[in-house]
């Protein structure tokens, strides 16, 4: 019915062009009418790469100005690999006159490679080579557009700028070479040139952050930056050497770092001793590693719980780096007072709101970069208390992108007010209103006479059941619960108080009770791109049994919890809880068979917190975008994952 449909009808119907394809120039009404339309129209040369779903709508406007702009300093900028090395060497030549004369061929080649690829990126809006770096070049183009005189500088400096992130504890294999080469480059530049370079870098970084570079990159950037600012230039040699040394070490860990660039921080692999030590040095919480860890799960962090809390509580008044609100929230996570994806996310965001309110920019620093660094330090503290959930990760990414988008011209109070209202709007739109929409959709699936089963305690499912009851639907609820958390008990208490008729059972009895059930409602911590539902441990069992009984399984999850990663099993990414909670049964002191389990070498206790439910078992996912099949999660991520940038 749309105009885009009619334009598609004239194309050969045997070929269905999905996503981006070349089409006729946009008629005026189309650009105005349809937000998704620009996605379909802009021509992209290598749009077939799956990583190209990055901010497609941002590509059309910058393309043309940058194209014409790039033509100024360099000759054929749109020409790709074959001619670019030559163009880059020429323009590189004029820059590097006063630069290291001793640039050996490998650095030049690497720089050319970096340069060529960045030119390619600016020209073609294709994804980064190798590193899988998530900064779309089209966004960089606007940053280089205003600084037309600095285009040369910015383009050259982008790879080293980005490898600055690598300069810290994180490095990317491809960029590690560049780092090595750019370090000697920087030492020889004059002060004015350095300032110019930094300005361009700042602009590039701002644009890069608009795409939400992950925590490690920014943390490392913050570290590298602070390291640089403290060291005067004579010490550049040392820093370069240190960096080079860490690069060498980074060489064999480069694959992991590579992965780390693509992957949010919580998935850092904890069986890597050096990285873990580095992390521990920086952290406020000083956890001790648990004993008797299961071999298969060595890549996940596991610390002694419970011993930390008194120590940390006493440290409350000695904080200098952490805002007390953030500290409080961290402790609440550690003790388990706040649990559940939405609750944790909201608590964290509100703590950040307070921190931002009390924040003041130190002199000689820009608000956006300093605040981002501060937020990153808060986030690493929270991670030490308890690994981030996907909802929190997405919220942090949103916050950082909003910080990055603050124009430099804005005053501090205005910027802080903007951020405050942005966070407020995020909480409101993505969580509170989203839950209302989910409830509205879900109650249409509840009929009179239904027997609904739910597992654990999900805030969304609880709201649905309460609302359906208010609407007067006749149904009863079966609550399935499991050790050690017994979250279902709280849900049971609340529902019974509202007057619903409930049945309570343990997960051992799931196949016994399933034949009575008509629908299963489950919550989720996150839904991944292949439709896998990542949720409290035990959810997969419930879904599987329901599937075996041909009972529809409905997963209720807000769209901000969707993530573009893919997980095939519950092992590669999970969270380990406290093993002592398995060995003891509260209220039953006579069950003491596992006392002293840690002394036995042959016995390891495993307390997993999450598990992954395959998409085959899920019939329907209810989100604030409506009811979608599990196969459509990547569609939502693609269309609306970047949508938060346009709030």
């Amino acid at each position, binding site marked *: 019915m749309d105009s885009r449909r009619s334009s598609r009808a004239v194309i050969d*119907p045997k070929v269905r062009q999905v996503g981006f394809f070349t089409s006729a120039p946009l008629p005026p009404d189309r650009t105005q009418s349809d937000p998704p339309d620009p996605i379909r129209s802009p021509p992209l040369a290598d749009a077939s790469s799956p990583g190209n779903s990055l901010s497609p709508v941002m590509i059309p406007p910058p393309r043309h100005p940058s194209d014409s702009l790039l033509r100024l300093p360099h000759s054929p900028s749109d020409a790709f690999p074959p001619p670019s090395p030559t163009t880059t060497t020429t323009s590189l030549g004029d820059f590097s006159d006063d630069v290291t004369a001793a640039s050996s061929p490998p650095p030049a080649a690497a720089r050319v490679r970096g340069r060529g690829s960045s030119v390619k990126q600016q020209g073609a809006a294709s994804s980064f080579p190798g590193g899988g770096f998530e900064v779309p070049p089209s966004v960089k183009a606007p940053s280089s557009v205003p600084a037309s005189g600095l285009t040369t500088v910015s383009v050259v400096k982008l790879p080293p700028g980005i490898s600055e992130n690598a300069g810290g504890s994180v490095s990317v294999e491809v960029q590690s070479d560049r780092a090595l080469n750019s370090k000697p480059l920087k030492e020889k530049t004059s002060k004015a040139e350095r300032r110019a370079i930094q300005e361009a870098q700042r602009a590039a970084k701002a644009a890069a952050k608009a795409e939400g570079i992950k925590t490690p990159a920014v943390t490392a950037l913050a570290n590298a930056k602070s390291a640089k600012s403290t060291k005067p230039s004579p010490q550049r040699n040392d820093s370069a050497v240190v960096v080079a040394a860490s690069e060498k070490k980074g060489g064999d860990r480069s694959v992991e770092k590579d992965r780390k660039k693509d992957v949010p921080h919580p998935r850092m692999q904890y069986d890597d001793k050096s990285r873990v030590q580095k992390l521990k040095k920086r952290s406020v919480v000083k956890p001790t590693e648990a004993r008797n860890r299961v071999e298969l799960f060595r890549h996940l962090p596991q610390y002694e719980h419970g011993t930390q809390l008194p120590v940390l509580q006493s440290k409350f008044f000695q904080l200098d780096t952490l805002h007390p609100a953030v500290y409080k929230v961290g402790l609440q996570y550690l003790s388990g007072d706040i649990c559940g994806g939405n609750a944790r996310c909201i608590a964290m965001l509100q703590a950040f709101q307070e921190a931002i309110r009390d924040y003041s920019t130190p002199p000689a620093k820009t608000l956006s970069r300093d605040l981002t660094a501060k937020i990153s330090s808060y986030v690493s503290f929270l991670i030490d208390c308890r690994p981030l959930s996907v909802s929190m990760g997405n919220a942090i990414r949103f916050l950082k992108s909003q910080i990055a988008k603050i124009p430099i011209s804005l005053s501090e109070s205005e910027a802080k007010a903007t951020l405050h209202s942005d966070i407020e709007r995020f909480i409101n739109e993505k969580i509170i209103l989203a839950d209302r929409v989910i409830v509205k959709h879900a109650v249409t699936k509840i009929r009179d006479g239904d027997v609904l089963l739910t597992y654990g305690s999900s805030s969304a499912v609880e709201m649905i059941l309460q609302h359906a009851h208010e609407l007067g639907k006749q149904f009863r609820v079966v609550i399935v619960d499991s050790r050690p958390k017994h979250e279902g008990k709280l849900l049971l208490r609340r529902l019974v108080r509202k007057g619903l008729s409930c049945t309570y059972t343990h997960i051992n009895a799931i196949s016994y009770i399933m034949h009575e059930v008509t629908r299963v409602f489950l919550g989720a911590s996150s839904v991944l791109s292949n439709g896998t539902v990542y949720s409290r441990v035990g959810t997969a069992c419930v879904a599987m049994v329901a599937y075996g009984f041909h009972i*529809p399984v409905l997963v209720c999850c807000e769209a901000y919890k969707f993530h573009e990663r893919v997980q095939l099993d519950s092992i590669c990414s999970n969270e380990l809880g406290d093993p002592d909670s398995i060995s003891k049964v509260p209220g039953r002191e006579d069950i003491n068979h596992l006392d002293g389990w840690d002394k036995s070498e042959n016995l390891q206790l495993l307390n997993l917190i999450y598990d992954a439910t395959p998409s085959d078992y899920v019939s329907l996912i209810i989100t604030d975008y*409506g009811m979608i099949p599990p196969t459509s999660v990547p569609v939502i991520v693609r269309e609306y994952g970047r949508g938060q940038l346009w709030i």
Partner: protein
Amino acid sequence: MSMSAYYQTRAAHHGVVTSDWLAQSQEAATRAVVTGGQEIVDGGKSGRAFSVIDEFNNWRKQPDLAEAVAAIRALAAVIRNSEAKTMMELEIELKKASDSLKSWDTTSISLTAGCDLFMRYVTRTSALEYEDFNSARSRLIERAEKFGEISYKARKIIAMLSQDFIFDGCTILVHGFSRVVMEVLKMAAQNKKLFRVLCTEGRPDRSGLRLANELAKLDVPVKLLIDSAVAYTMDEVDMVFVGADGVVESGGIINMMGTYQIALVAHSMNKPVYVAAESYKFARLYPLDQKDMGPALRPIDFGVPIPSKVEVETSARDYTPPQYLTLLFTDLGVLTPSVVSDELIQLYL
């Protein structure tokens, strides 16, 4: 007992006159008059509502016209007859007309989908600033007219796409009388393909009889089966071709009663099930099981009187889940069932 007007109309199209059909059409005619009367009593505005439904029914009676097209033509008539002076007013009128159409026959999915599509188009393009009201109005009317062409072209596109899947010597099982599937087979016959069609009787509409008639006219070898003989003959079948009353968000289809059965049998015997449906039939429904849809009842004439104590299952349609469907042939191309949601998200969000 309520009756689905949609399925009644289809029966009328099929032209298979049965005694119960006569009785029901009588009843329906009186009902329409009564509803019309009630709506006149409502007030001035409802005069329009009456004409929308009337208009729609006029269009709907044409056998070759799709439901959605009839709906959109009716809405175009609303625009033509409207006295609104601003876009906002016109939109509100259209919304009212669309709602009344949808509520008049809640069982027709393509009607709902067609109305929604048109309303979506209207709301999306109504905010254009460079247009004055009259040009906007004529644009909408023209768009509505064009929709009819699009729908007709859609059938041709679908027929073209499916030609590759019909090979010489194949046996196709067809259920119910779908105009799109008819187009597919017609084009295959015109392309001189050698194939054989098995068509089910399609009780209670007995639409299969009409289909067999049409195919025989095209000199295509046709074999009629009773509905129960599907599993018996599934061995010699190479593919199953069905149309759809609606394609739902999960990728499944809602179609005439019996489609689910055939899809199940075909799936268990590894025969592909192909669905031919135009893209305007995509609806934002998501049935979880057979009973999750609104009921669409169509009384069944058994030929002998049934004692009153005996209940009869009179639902006219069933829902086939996406795992039993192989491919969907639409005017957007050849799609897998999971793409339907993709399209719907892009269209409606």
